């Protein structure tokens, strides 16, 4: 197991390096000159060539590309992503807290998605083809076809405005979590519970179930075996879900004014604050790889076959 983890981690290192390079190079694809953006956002009244050159030198833009990349990469390792073009604050002082807020939202949502999907998936698989199964699947079908922001707006309107039970936005108490978590859960649980359901159903057709029954094992024990095998799929899927949710809370965060990465990134895009965008992309890509690695490791721990394969 130790060997597997080491190998898996080693594989992800070149990927991280490559991604950091792509992220860095990205910004240079922009049609806008960063120096110009900085001057614009600082409200400099008249932008002269001279001023641009000066700013470029300040930003270290006059140096060769690779030197700049290396310098940037090293400082990124120390969580120094430079300063915001707009307000001059260090990027990490803005990004760090936002990341934690988004992470909190993601984790709470992930747990809620896991619980709901397992319950629904198991119920539907055990009652496959019956009314319960059909109605749950039908309902989830419509819920996944709904734009999350629309659902969110409807919920704000009903629960926060009409009934006045919950806060409309912000992140003040546990109550602030209820609406965003519900919206994210509805958006994703519909997909995940179907994965659990079909994984249960395909496991039910496996020979080991037949053999277990042929040996006279009680249904309860057989169901436990089916669950054990289906949940393996579930675990790896959920681990993958965490980075996906982490990256896709953008819409929900903006609607509920959640002080997280999604809100920050949209704000930065609208104000063209490149260092923040760059850091945002890098941090999330690394988080994405990290979580995928963790999910692979968990998967290997649960499924001895995978472990031997690598």
């Amino acid at each position: 197991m130790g060997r597997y983890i080491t190998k898996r981690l080693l594989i992800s290192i070149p990927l991280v390096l490559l991604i950091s390079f792509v992220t860095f190079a990205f910004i240079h694809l922009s049609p806008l000159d960063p120096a110009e953006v900085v001057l614009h956002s600082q409200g400099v009244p008249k932008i002269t060539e001279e001023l641009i050159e000066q700013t470029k030198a300040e930003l270290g833009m006059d140096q060769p590309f690779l030197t700049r990349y290396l310098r940037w990469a090293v400082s990124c390792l120390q969580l120094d992503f430079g300063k915001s073009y707009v307000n001059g604050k260090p990027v990490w002082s803005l990004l760090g807290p936002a990341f934690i807020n988004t992470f909190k939202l993601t984790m709470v949502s992930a747990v809620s998605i896991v619980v709901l999907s397992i319950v629904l998936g198991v119920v539907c698989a055990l009652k496959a083809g019956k009314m319960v199964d059909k109605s749950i699947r039908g309902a989830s079908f419509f819920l996944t076809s709904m734009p999350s922001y629309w659902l969110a707006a409807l919920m704000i309107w009903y629960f926060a405005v009409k009934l006045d039970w919950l806060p409309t936005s912000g992140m003040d108490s546990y109550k602030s979590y209820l609406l965003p978590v519900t919206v994210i859960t509805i958006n994703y649980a519909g997909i995940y519970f179907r994965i659990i359901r079909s994984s249960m159903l395909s496991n039910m057709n496996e020979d080991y179930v037949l053999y277990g029954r042929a040996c006279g094992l009680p249904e309860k024990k057989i169901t436990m075996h089916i669950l054990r095998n289906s949940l393996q799929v579930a675990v790896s899927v959920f681990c993958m879900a965490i980075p996906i949710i982490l990256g896709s809370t953008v819409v929900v965060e903006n609607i509920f004014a959640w002080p997280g990465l999604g809100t920050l990134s949209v704000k930065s895009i609208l104000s063209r604050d490149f260092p923040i965008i760059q850091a945002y992309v890098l941090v999330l890509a690394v988080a994405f790889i990290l979580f995928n690695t963790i999910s692979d490791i968990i998967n290997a721990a649960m499924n001895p076959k995978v472990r031997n394969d690598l």
Partner: protein
Amino acid sequence: MNRLKYVLKDKVAALSLSIIAVTTVAGVFAPFIAPHDPEEVNMELQFAASSWEYLLGNDHLGRCMLSRLIYGIRPSMLWVFAALVLSVTIGSIVGFLAGYFRGKTDAFLMRVCDVMLSFPGYVMTLAVIGILGVGFENILLAFVLMKWAWFARIIRTSVMQYAESEYVKFSKAIGASHLKIMISHIIPVALPDIAVIASSSFGSMILQISGFSFLGLGIQAPQAEWGMMLNEAREVMFSRPELMLAPGLTIVIIVSAINYLADTLQVALDPQLMTSKNKQLGFETTSIAKLEGKGVA
């Protein structure tokens, strides 16, 4: 053809198909169908309820909601479809090359895909918009850039499986050219797979792209687009919540129709899944496709 009949035998699928067809036609011929100019401001009719002249009422600038919805079909559905087709085409070409020639070509192309796929979809889209600036074309571009890798991955697997089949080996043995084998033996069998994959991510793409417009990163006012309409409605959400209904329901209906059709298509095109016994199992692949679709935005 039999399979298409199979799809149409399902009444809900037939209904879905007709909804999509009608919407598409309405979108293409919007200027002839829409009762009013979608950008015509008429402050006297601000927030007017539905009337015979304005069937769905008017928005905060007194513009005709119905006309805006009809014009909104173009960016929200037709352009998204175009972006989908483009990325599927790129993905298919790459997937074909990788799956058919294997070896170094495959290894290289798949590493490129790995890198593309290691960015979470939304993040990548935001990055592209961040660099190129706010705008609908940039969102579409971001989607094409993002999605192709994912399509390539799946199509490669499908092509690989066919490239190893006996009749392809036979054709190779009798000296048929690569191009000929691809055109006559692999494309016809891989096409259904591609159709299933593409159709099952169409729905989530519509949702996501309208989501970006909703955030104000896509289409800019005064153009009509469903996400944009919802964004405008949000500002008056507390006083006029009914403005959210029409565009929201439109999206729900269209996306449901597309998703339902995609599911039916999957079942119909995969002969193994034709028997009722296995019908439920067929959803696994589509739902995973959707999951990935969400992930890779």
